[in-house]
């Protein structure tokens, strides 16, 4: 096991400190957060404006997926591209032909030549995507089903290259999933509740999330790891909502981030290995809507499932390495393999600089074997927050032959 600190006020380890910093690096920055909100509100107004061809049936946007639970991360490894997922509420007949709905939404967002989004919009099989500089807004049209649970909706599937016979209506409840996720991971419930209450406030406070939830951070890290695994592969990757489902199902047993990541990794492996041994595909249903099959597009077959199972085996072996040798060196190397060399190197270098600054300034302190040194170096705490912490007198390391 990773060495625990004697001080019961914190279980922070070097692995935790670096993991938290990586999580900060891969998620929406405050700047991008503001930009995402601006885009979201602008599209909401654009679709609801008088001249909009769907103004009479458009009933507003609300966040779904990672955006709803505050787990948005960069979708690309080499730059800060983010996918923001929202639902467009439409007041139309739920049996409207899927292609018709998606085409209408595409036309409404794309607008006339010269309009704000013209040429930046693409139509996908279930949503319309607006491309911004380093950000994508995925708008999924949905029609409420008032006879079912709150916000259970019909969404539409119509791949342009598929015959109409393959087009279909899907009963889904992404809003209900976000609420279930919040209830299953109590430490994030306040954040998600705030988002769900006010749909025009779509992105949770990222720093607040970091302080509150190891489950949420573990989910972000798993998504980043998934992105790295599938960065150069053809075909679909495991959907974020499937990872979120397993994280919520296994949340609550760990108090520190590394252990949470370990728990989640083990749980994912156990679930997929069990299904694979049985010769079955993992099947996950939305707990808020039984007909909403979250694995309907992945895994497509056992081969796709086996690839992910292999990734999970590698993840487990990498975390084992850290447990056996929980040093900065090993953490940095392993996290580079898991989450990307660039982000791991940046985080390690920042950690080094902070430690150096604190050492030069006499701002390190000792509390029962290194705890204070670590916290100060990680920037996650200060001496005042530790009981029994004693400042280390500024001094100079010497060196040379004797």
């Amino acid at each position, binding site marked *: 096991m990773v060495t625990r600190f004697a001080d019961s006020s914190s279980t922070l*380890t070097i692995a935790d400190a670096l993991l938290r910093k990586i999580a900060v690096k891969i998620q929406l920055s405050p700047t991008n957060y503001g930009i995402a909100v601006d885009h979201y509100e602008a599209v909401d107004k654009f679709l609801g404006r008088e001249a909009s061809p769907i103004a009479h049936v458009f009933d507003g946007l609300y966040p779904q997926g990672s955006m709803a639970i505050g787990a948005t991360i960069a979708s690309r490894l080499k730059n800060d591209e983010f996918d923001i997922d929202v639902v467009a509420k439409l007041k139309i007949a739920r049996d409207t032909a899927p292609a018709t709905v998606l085409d209408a939404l595409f036309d409404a967002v794309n607008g006339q030549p010269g309009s704000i989004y013209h040429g930046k919009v693409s139509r996908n099989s279930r949503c319309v995507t607006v491309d911004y500089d380093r950000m994508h807004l995925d708008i999924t049209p949905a029609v409420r089903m008032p006879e079912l649970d709150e916000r259970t909706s019909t969404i539409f599937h119509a791949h342009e290259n598929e015959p109409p016979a393959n087009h279909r209506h899907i009963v889904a409840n992404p809003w209900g999933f976000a609420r279930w996720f919040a209830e299953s991971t109590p430490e994030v419930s306040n954040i998600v509740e705030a988002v769900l209450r006010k749909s025009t406030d779509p992105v949770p406070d990222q720093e607040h999330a970091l302080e509150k939830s190891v489950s949420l951070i573990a989910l972000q890290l798993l998504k980043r790891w998934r992105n790295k695994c599938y960065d150069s592969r053809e075909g679909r990757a495991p959907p974020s909502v499937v990872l979120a489902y397993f994280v919520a199902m296994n949340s609550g047993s760990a108090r520190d981030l590394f252990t949470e990541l370990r728990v989640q990794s083990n749980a994912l492996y156990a679930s997929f290995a069990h299904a694979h041994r049985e010769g079955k595909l993992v099947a996950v249903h939305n707990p808020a809507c039984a007909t909403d099959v979250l694995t309907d597009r992945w895994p497509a077959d056992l081969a796709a499932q086996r690839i992910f199972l292999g990734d999970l085996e590698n993840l487990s072996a990498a975390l084992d390495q850290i447990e056996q040798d929980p*040093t900065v060196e090993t*953490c940095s190397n392993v996290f580079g393999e898991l989450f990307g060399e660039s982000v791991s190197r940046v985080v390690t270098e920042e950690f080094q600089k902070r430690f150096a600054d604190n*050492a030069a300034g006499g701002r390190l302190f*000792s509390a029962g074997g290194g705890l204070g*040194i670590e916290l100060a170096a990680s920037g996650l705490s200060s001496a005042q927050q530790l009981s029994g912490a*004693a400042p280390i007198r500024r001094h100079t390391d010497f060196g040379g032959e*004797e």
Partner: protein
Amino acid sequence: MKAQHPQLRLLVGGRDLLVWEGPLRGFSKQYTVRIFWHRFPPDDSLRLKISSPRVIVIDPAPQSLDGMAVPHIYRNSARVGERICCWDPSSDDWNWEDAIADTVVPYAEQWLCSYEIWRATGIWSAPGRHPEIITCENPAQSTETSSHAQPAPITAAGFVKVGRLIGTFASSALMAVASEGFYRWPRSRDWKGIGFKGVRSPHVSIWLLAPQPAALSPSVSLAA
């Protein structure tokens, strides 16, 4: 020490020599560390600095990185592990009046953290000073260039005076053994030839009584 760092066990608690051993942590890893202190009172007339506590990281011993030697260690000064240099002996980082528990131990902890970061980045993160190699055979030819003057090598007369101060040359034998990182107490052969006649050079080292590595200079600096 016992109250602040109970994990460090007192191995030797004599009047002239104190030796502790036990685990100290870097960021997340524990190292077995030995701290020993030849408790000579300061004597400026002898220009001795041999009373500074010494810290040896025994297990796991610090390892080089891609051919780069570990910074801030006294090379070839410990038979087991590495003697680390976690403060500047020519500064006020440690004085006779300072409690080892308040200074040397946290200095060693910080050194271990710096070492772990160095292993990951190749950068030493704490303030440091690297003197050039000290040659003590002929003080006039010293290559020391740092701003801090190094103490002159101890003389035979000084050695006698030290013996008087601490009561017996026998203490020196114990210190010599401890200095080399031995786990055992000296045997009879360790004492053979001890005394003024045993000194083979006008420059005396407290390491003389311990087996000399082949490459070790017959006289070494006592500055630490």
